């Protein structure tokens, strides 16, 4: 595993002219060295120019169906476990991200299968009543005609180490026929480039309209070139990163930020009988374990209702048991010092709370030993939403009624996104109504929190619709044109 893996995809730039920055990743006893492209200002400009022109000349004229077919073929390569690209992904991503092999394998499959042709068509149908507007003028309901186009040059700034996360926005950009330049995330710098190359192989013309590169965030001149050239910037990251980036994006350029989020789950008393509690705890554990709570959709707190056959404290023990059982199949990755410190701080805060009370526990019960690769804390009092220590640490908060939960999470509206709910249908809708009112944008079943469905609306936005601008031929123009037709009377 000493080979150097070249990251990115740079059409129109001679490979030997590109500077590289080598970053070594180490996990599971192996090392992978990744060479990140590091372009000069001139090269950055040339790359943007190349993508913009090729997109104008070819991509804009392509039928959406052809783009869908190319993405479908690229996804098929990465779904085929015997394909060399897939084999490489399964070998390298666990080392680069630190996630265990099984998590990477299952995660890749579950993400990529949302980019097959039927799912892509659904993605389009989700946002466009008539996806034909992307291919040409279509009759508008109000009269006249309308067509939609993505930005001529769309810049993605990706972040985070959740494998293949970048593909969501990459695919969205291509579906609206945008010339696309993506900036790799340091923590997962491979999948986007592989996917771009697979697309180039499936449809070489499309591959010329798509570039994947890297630059050091905040590093003046090169970053400035990309930000200046783009018509629209879609960025992922923490508030600080986004604020810094926003300040540098020219005023007339659209900026679509996706900040960090906190997820939570709710379990109703009707789901807490002795038959269901165990399996439910396993599903919740799955949501906690998959990607080690690094994804925005992962739960960091579970609100569990009193009054069921299984009490919240007992559910916490079920969850602890499930986390312990999962740890052997999906071992936790090696933590960096800062990550270990975050867990230690989270644990010790609850430990102090437990000591503060006069009783033996003070209503706070910490399950799991310091040495365990997971921690569950059971809080007997209704407690407002707060982040966990990440990496398999989760709080189970007992509440008398799940209706209280929206009040407990509402103060953090700006950070809300996914909620997992286990409740009977009538309550599901009642709770969903409350949650929608305070900014929750996605509600899933437990066990599905980290696997959003095809066509989901990230942060409640329309992934494709948000990107496009429409051109309308008003009815007046159409009617007036009739007067100038050769067949006009």
């Amino acid at each position, binding site marked *: 595993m000493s080979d150097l893996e070249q990251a990115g995809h740079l059409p129109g730039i001679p490979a030997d002219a590109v500077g590289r920055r080598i970053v070594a990743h180490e996990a599971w006893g192996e090392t992978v060295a990744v060479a990140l492209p590091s372009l000069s200002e001139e090269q950055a400009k040339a790359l943007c120019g190349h993508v913009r022109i090729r997109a104008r000349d070819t991509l804009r004229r392509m039928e959406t169906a052809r783009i869908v077919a190319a993405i479908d073929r690229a996804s098929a390569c990465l779904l085929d476990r015997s394909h060399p690209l897939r084999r490489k992904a399964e070998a390298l991503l666990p080392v680069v991200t630190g996630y265990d092999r099984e998590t990477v394998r299952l995660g890749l499959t579950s993400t990529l299968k949302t980019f097959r042709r039927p799912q892509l068509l659904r993605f389009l149908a989700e946002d466009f009543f008539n996806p034909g507007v992307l291919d040409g003028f279509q009759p508008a309901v109000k009269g006249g005609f309308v067509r939609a186009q993505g930005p001529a040059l769309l810049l993605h700034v990706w*972040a*985070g*180490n*959740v494998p293949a*996360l970048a593909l969501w926005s990459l695919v969205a950009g291509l579906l609206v026929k945008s010339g696309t330049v993506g900036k790799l995330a340091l*923590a997962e710098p491979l999948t986007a480039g592989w996917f771009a190359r697979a697309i180039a192989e499936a449809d070489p013309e499309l591959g010329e309209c798509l570039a994947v590169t890297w630059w050091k965030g905040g590093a003046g001149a090169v970053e400035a070139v990309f930000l200046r050239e783009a018509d629209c910037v879609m960025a*992922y*990251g*923490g*508030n*600080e990163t986004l604020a810094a980036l926003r300040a540098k994006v020219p005023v007339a350029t659209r900026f679509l930020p*996706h900040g*960090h*989020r*906190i*997820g939570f789950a709710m379990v109703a008393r009707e789901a807490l009988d002795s038959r269901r509690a165990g399996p439910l705890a396993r599903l919740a554990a799955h949501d906690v374990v998959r*990607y*080690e*709570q*690094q*994804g*925005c959709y*992962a739960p*960091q707190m579970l609100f569990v209702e009193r009054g069921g056959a299984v009490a919240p404290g007992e559910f916490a023990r079920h969850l602890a048991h499930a986390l312990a059982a999962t740890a052997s199949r999906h071992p936790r990755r090696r*933590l*960096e*010092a*800062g*990550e*270990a*410190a*975050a*867990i*230690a*701080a*989270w644990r*010790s*805060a609850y*430990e*102090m*709370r*437990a*000591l*503060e009370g006069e009783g*033996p526990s003070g209503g706070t019960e910490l399950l799991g030993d*310091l*040495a365990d690769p997971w921690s569950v804390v059971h809080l007997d009092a209704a407690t407002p939403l*707060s*982040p966990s*220590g*990440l990496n398999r640490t989760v709080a189970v908060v007992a509440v008398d009624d799940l209706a209280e939960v929206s009040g407990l999470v509402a103060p*953090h509206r*700006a*950070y809300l996104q996914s909620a997992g709910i286990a409740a009977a249908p009538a309550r599901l809708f009642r709770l969903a109504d409350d949650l929608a009112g305070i900014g929750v944008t996605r509600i899933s079943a437990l066990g599905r929190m980290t696997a959003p469905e095809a066509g989901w609306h990230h942060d409640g936005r329309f992934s494709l619709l948000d990107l496009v601008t429409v051109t309308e031929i008003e009815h007046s123009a159409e009617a007036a044109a009739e007067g100038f037709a050769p067949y006009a009377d």
Partner: protein
Amino acid sequence: MSQAEIVDALLAFIGRPGATDAEFEALALRLFAYQFAHNAPYRRFAQQRGRTPLTVRRWRDVPAVPIKAFKDLTLSCCPPEAAERVFMTSGTTGSGRGRSYHPTLAVYDASMLAGFRARVMRERERIRMGILFPDEAALPNSSLAHYLALAREQCGTPDSAVLVGSAGLDLDALLRALGEAEASGEPYALLGATYAFVPVMDALAERGRRFGLPAGSLIFDTGGFKGQSREIDPDTFYDGLSHAFGVPRDACLNMYGMTELSTQFYDDGNAVCPPVKSGPHWIRSRVVDPLTGADLPEGETGVLVHHDLAHFNSVSAILTEDAGVIAPGGFRLLGRVEGSASRGCSVAVAEFLAAAQA
């Protein structure tokens, strides 16, 4: 064992250089038993960890309390109201102030003076001091104010002065004192909070003033910047001090102490950063994995645990939030342990708190 017996044993131990490992361990275990018996929250903490005086046989196994606990819990063997003095943290980081209760200052003072004489005064009896920190009357709950008052009273010449008053830094008095020291040829010691030196250096630079303090002079800073001044990296900071006062970097000493301890660590100058820090024979340090509390192999970076026998009334073993690495003769301090952000797109605590405070 009564409090009086503990105090006597500690004063004797502090006064007996060359105490062996076995003697340190024996006293550490006696103190653990004392704190376990009289400090209820600490007892619950230790019990939760399965550590009691019956099971702990080595000082390294005495459970270390996270420093945050001093904010949330009353960690005192004597009733809090019986304390002669309560030192509180400045409360600049997060909510609440950590408190340390001292039923008597006899041990704190003996510990401070022995350390200060050995590491700052060295062979000297007294030195003229300028102090860049408010006095005890202004900050009665500040351990640093008490520390500096003690230094001035016991080791300063009569013309030593506190140069920070209710109106802030008295720059004129400072310039006068520095000028006199320069002219007199007598060594001068400028002591204060790290952040207090920043505006002083700025003011000198603004006036184009520099001093060449006589040989044997020293600069003493402590505590870091704490958001009270702009942050300066250590090399630039000590270069700046050396330039402004004409004192070589190896005579720029940094003291590392905290409200939650009764003993301080020192380096032997900051010619090279970070320097090795060490303390006297009644305090020992470990570098641990913050998650498990287990000792890390020498040379690995972890979180510092200090075991200060002199902090007898509260808890002797504390888990800091400072990163460090064991080095020959002591340890190197590598700054604060930061809880890292998530590597994905989850909100981590740091970002969440920053937003909540905004």
